């Protein structure tokens, strides 16, 4: 039995889903499908949205129908997704294991929720920092804001739930929401528990590409002092 579902997301998009859980193996399968679809795009394809365990293809219905003579675009693209699922497995191997080392300053001034996260886990703030920097995280999705990486999975003892009330979050802020960790690329209202800030610019509309992180990449954080943070910020400018 094949454990996936395909459902319409309106009349010009379709989602392929492997279920509602965060599993690295599922995500690799999705990445493999994405690669296969990029090499064999259905006519009229306009975008592929990769998430944790799903992939959404967006297409231009008119172009697709002009090119295929299929009875419905939905059936045609469904078939393409099934094929991508079976053939895409060959492409999971060549996932480019790009790994980014991201400096984070965990100074109080940048970490309004660090104490809270420590208390929840019965830890010292130093232990939270050690745990957060110990793991290599996988980027499952870029969403919410341009360049906002959804990464998992943090150590269970620092997996603090989201705040009840969102508040204004500064650009570069590094946060935790459940088992996920992420970086706010621009200032924005947000509900994640903020435990530090990176001096790196995660989104820069003037550079090419404007975003370097992509789903499938890996990230490891390392702690820097306030002075190193300021120096890195200056270098960037």
């Amino acid at each position, binding site marked *: 039995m094949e454990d996936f579902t395909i*459902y*319409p*997301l*309106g*009349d*010009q*998009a379709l*989602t392929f*889903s492997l279920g*509602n*859980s*965060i599993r690295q193996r599922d995500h690799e399968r999705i990445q493999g499908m994405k690669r296969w679809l990029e090499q064999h795009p259905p006519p009229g394809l*306009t*975008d*592929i*949205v*990769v*998430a*944790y*365990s*799903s*992939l*959404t293809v*967006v297409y231009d*219905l*008119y172009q697709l*129908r002009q090119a295929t003579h299929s009875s*419905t*675009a*939905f059936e045609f693209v469904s078939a393409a997704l099934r094929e991508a699922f079976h053939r895409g497995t060959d492409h999971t191997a060549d996932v480019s294991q790009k790994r980014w080392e991201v400096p984070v300053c965990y100074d109080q001034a940048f970490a309004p929720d660090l104490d809270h996260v420590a208390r929840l886990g019965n830890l010292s703030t130093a232990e939270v920092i050690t745990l957060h920097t110990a793991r290599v995280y996988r980027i499952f*999705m*870029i*969403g*919410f*804001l*341009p*360049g*906002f990486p*959804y990464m998992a999975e943090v150590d269970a003892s620092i997996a603090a739930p989201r705040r009840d009330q969102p508040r204004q979050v500064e650009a570069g802020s590094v946060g935790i929401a459940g088992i996920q960790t992420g970086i706010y690329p*621009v200032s924005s209202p947000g509900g994640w528990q903020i435990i530090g800030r990176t001096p790196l610019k995660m*989104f820069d*509309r003037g550079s090419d*590409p*404007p*975003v370097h992180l*992509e*789903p499938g990449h890996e990230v490891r954080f390392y702690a820097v002092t306030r002075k190193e943070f300021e120096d890195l910020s200056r270098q960037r400018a």
Partner: protein
Amino acid sequence: MSIQLIRSGILDTIQDQGRHGYSKWGINPSGTMDRYAAQAANILVGNALDEAVMEMHFPSGELLFTSDALVSITGADFTPLINSKAVPLWKPMVVKKHSVLTFQRRQWGYRCYLSVRGGFGITPWLGSRSTNMRISAGGFQGRALKKDDQLNFRRQLPGPEAHDDLRILPWRVNAQPVYHDMGSICFVEGREWSWLTSASQQQVLSDPFSIAPSSDRMGCYLQHEPLAVQRTEQLLSSGVSMGTIQLLPAGKLVVLMADHQTTGGYPRIGHIISAHLPKLSQLAPHESLRLRMISVADAEKMLFSLQQELRALQRACLDKLSDYDL
């Protein structure tokens, strides 16, 4: 070879058919709210369907033409006046240099489009001229237009001669069928439709909704009695599209519009069909609508025939323009 804003509007931006293909970076598509009106505006002046146009809300800016231009105005009827004289919508017109375009009163609709022959001289960002205001990118300096902005035309294409201060050309788009029965809007079932209790499903299918004043280019919020679910599960975020109807935690519905985020994690009870997004885009706050569920196959048919009609119209308009040796 330009248009100059001599007075700011409330929200006038440059938009095309959207910036597609960059969800891998979390960059959302933007683009016009009423894709049909924008495509029609382009067709009337001989542009490609996806050329950038000016999208205006009311009160809109006042525009000064610094050169002759072949233009058309489509979408909402804000009572356009050229040099204080009323001009028609959905028709091409040659506007003479030094003319001023103003909009007097909102009579119908919510978003009005202005196309110019040859398009606006905007440098594309990631393949599109759409304005993404959230990240201050694309369009005209990444922002809404304001007083003293000067919008150059990309190419000065030959146009019919302007005789007086205005010359209306003898062809038009009949948009009436597209906006017929404004308050009746179709959707297709969403993945989490069955999460609603049967009473709430009935409510969606039979009760009227009205457009909340908080609606904007990101989302169209609906006003109604809260809906109830028989299932509460945390969904992992996944891709969403323009027209996706999300159920918010308080039981209220929001339809994602042109500036929607690339991903979302709220239950999706349905998706407004693409052929009816133009109607939804033209509903003003407090106006009401009813939702009707149809099949994906029917939604596809409606969109495909609408696009076929636009292509036929495009060929006809190009023929007309060739009569003027254009």
